[in-house]
């Protein structure tokens, strides 16, 4: 889709494969990363609070982008997979497992749980697959609440000790921000690598037409399962980060509503783009922040309005924004960004 600026030619395979090709791109990326690194000092505590949530959500959204955006496998249970990762992490962390291993355990547990539901993608698709993945949400709830309290805390939830390196406990919000940022960066790099790899191309082929994909030699069953496995692994890592961030988890933190929000993030950001997932996270979380700010203001200015009306009004506002995106830009903000970039580069001769 994207056209490189004129005069940029790949003369080696390494250059051709590179993600960042021009000096301007390097400079833009450096400025952006520097902005994220100094953000807590520039914008203060509120930025840190919002950014921590965004970084964790971004990891889960990248996973869903791989499953849904790249492989075309609808998944309405991403929050449950995230929950599974969070509980698995808390379970092993409570028993003294080091935090990096605990986070990895969370990812693997969610991947295992996700594959079980992903296998159904081999047999069903579309609406039926959506229903199957919704079942993951209910199974997760039931399993956590019904298992012995000593395992996952049952209805009472589970406490998780903070990340500890030597005698240093990672409880400061800014320190957690940098930790989440580092993990999100690694996961982003991994996601870009996956979607550009043989697997990523197989995912895209299966998404576009699974019959044709099988005819050109792609193992569709393996590709679909792998898409669920990778997406669930990302959700599990996000859940693990969430567990270490919140330090007290319960099943009601991972609801179907959260899964729907993740789908909205993909719709708004743009399906089939890892960066699009990140843009979706920023836009949706930004909108939620606007509502968080507006709610009390509306109540203060119009106290005669009941809370129910404000609640409904805010959710209608959010729904309208998403509907506008679907109607006006169904391919998401990332697609619009690519179009703008191409127009800018070819202006004034777009033909």
């Amino acid at each position, binding site marked *: 889709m994207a056209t490189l600026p004129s005069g940029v030619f790949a003369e080696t395979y390494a250059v051709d494969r590179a993600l960042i090709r021009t000096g301007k791109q390097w400079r833009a990326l450096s400025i952006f990363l520097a902005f994220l690194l100094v953000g807590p000092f520039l914008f*203060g*505590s*509120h930025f*840190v*609070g*919002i950014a*921590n*949530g965004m970084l964790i959500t971004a990891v889960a959204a990248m996973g869903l982008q791989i499953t849904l955006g790249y492989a075309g496998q609808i998944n309405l249970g991403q929050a449950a997979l995230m929950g599974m990762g969070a509980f698995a992490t808390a379970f092993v962390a409570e028993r003294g497992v080091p935090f990096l291993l605990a986070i990895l355990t969370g990812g693997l547990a969610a991947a295992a749980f996700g594959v079980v539901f992903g296998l159904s993608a081999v047999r069903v698709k579309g609406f039926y697959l959506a229903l199957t993945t919704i079942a993951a949400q209910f199974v997760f*709830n*039931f399993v956590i*609440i*019904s298992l012995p309290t000593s395992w996952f805390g*049952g*209805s*009472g*939830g589970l*406490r998780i000790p*903070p990340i500890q390196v030597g005698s240093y406990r990672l*409880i400061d*919000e800014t320190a957690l921000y940098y930790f989440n940022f580092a993990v999100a960066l690694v996961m982003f790099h991994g996601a870009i690598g996956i979607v550009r790899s043989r697997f990523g191309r197989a995912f895209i082929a299966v998404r576009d037409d699974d019959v044709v994909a099988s005819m050109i030699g792609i193992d569709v069953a393996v590709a679909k399962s792998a898409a669920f496995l990778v997406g669930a692994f990302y959700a599990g890592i996000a859940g693990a980060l969430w567990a270490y*961030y*919140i*330090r*007290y988890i*319960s*099943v*009601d*933190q991972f609801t179907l509503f959260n899964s729907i929000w993740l789908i909205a993030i993909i719709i708004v950001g743009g399906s089939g783009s890892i960066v699009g997932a990140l843009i979706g996270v920023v836009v949706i979380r930004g909108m*939620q922040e606007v*509502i*968080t*700010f*507006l*709610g*009390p203001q*509306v*109540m203060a200015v119009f*106290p005669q309005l*009941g*809370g*129910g009306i*404000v*609640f409904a009004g*805010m*959710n209608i506002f959010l729904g309208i924004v998403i509907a506008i995106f679907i109607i006006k830009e169904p391919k998401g903000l990332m697609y619009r960004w690519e179009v703008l970039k191409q127009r800018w580069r070819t202006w004034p001769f777009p033909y």
Partner: protein
Amino acid sequence: MTQLTRRDFAKAAIAVGSAATFGQRATAADLQKLSVIGFADYTGPYAIIAKDTVGGREAVMRWWNAEVGNGLGVELEFRNFDTHSDPATAASLWPSVAAAKPLLLLSFGASDAVPLHDRLPDAGIPLFFSGAVPYPLWQPNGWEFAPRASYAHDVGTFFDWMYAKKKATAPIKVAMVSSQAVPLYVDMVKGVEAYAKASGKISLVSTIWDTPQPTDLTTQMKETIKANPEFFIVQTNVAQGVAVVRALQALGKDIPLVLESHCGLDPTAKALGDPSALEGCYEAHPLPMPFGQTEPKKFYDMLVSKYDLRVDFQAMVANGILHGLFATRAIEAAIRKYSTTGLNGVKIREAVTSETLKGFYGFVPDMRIDGNQPFPLNGAVNVAIYEDGKYVEAASQVPLTKLAKW
């Protein structure tokens, strides 16, 4: 005697005016500002009750500043944050809350309190819960405090009273309706199971697990009724109460319900559109009920007339007023113990766990919270019943049952 001239009068008037003006300004400037932060749900699933609960606690803050804080030389600066009852939003707001270093944080419910459970000790900010204490927050030596005990205590106290009233000799058979979708709802059932086991006064013959907002429970109720329950306990929400009543009507059975403060007789009757459907049903909780010109009602009336409280007197506004009183009385206790100099959350917590908090205008008795549990053990429960189509008092100030953590 020297005669006073016009000039003397003018001088005196200027002196008095200056003293009044500048003296008052000096007093206002001398007031020490203390930060209090409250969580609310203006745009989430419980926004419907935000106006009542937040309205109640804000009116108390205004009253306290004017009539108590002024005398103590302090003024509470109260700010609300909207959490949408979403743990992620509560967590994202936490850095801002911690940076403001409030004396205490007023919670709106478990959804905002639970995510902050482990952050409170590190920041030295106590959290004041508004409703009954949910399981995760029932910890010894914690940083969360509540003016009332658990929902299981409410049910237990009701059945202590009912057992005595009926002069029962065998356990009263009860059934519950709940949902596994919400951990707090599961906790409610576990609490009742614990009370049944500990007291021997009730026998939980069946629990119907359904969605939080069931449309029809007739089939499940048909099976449950075979076990002959004498009461149905519904502590979750109005939708479940309505579903139980509708199912009982469909099955032609007349079994009374026992309801909670947030899903009491009045809201359930309104949702049903027919109060007579609740004939013989009960509501049991520690909040004051609107019967006569009681002390809580007089305090509420004063808040309405002088402090801009604009909601009707019912359980949720009583909950908000109690929440505000609990917080302000704790601050007062801390000021008495430590003075206003260097007052912070740690001192508030120490005062709450070591002092008797007084002056609740009949909303709850004077309370003493020791470190073993986050709520007072000397509470009481009020009981209302729908009788002949009217909402009337059945019992008041029934002493709180004894119940260990399950």
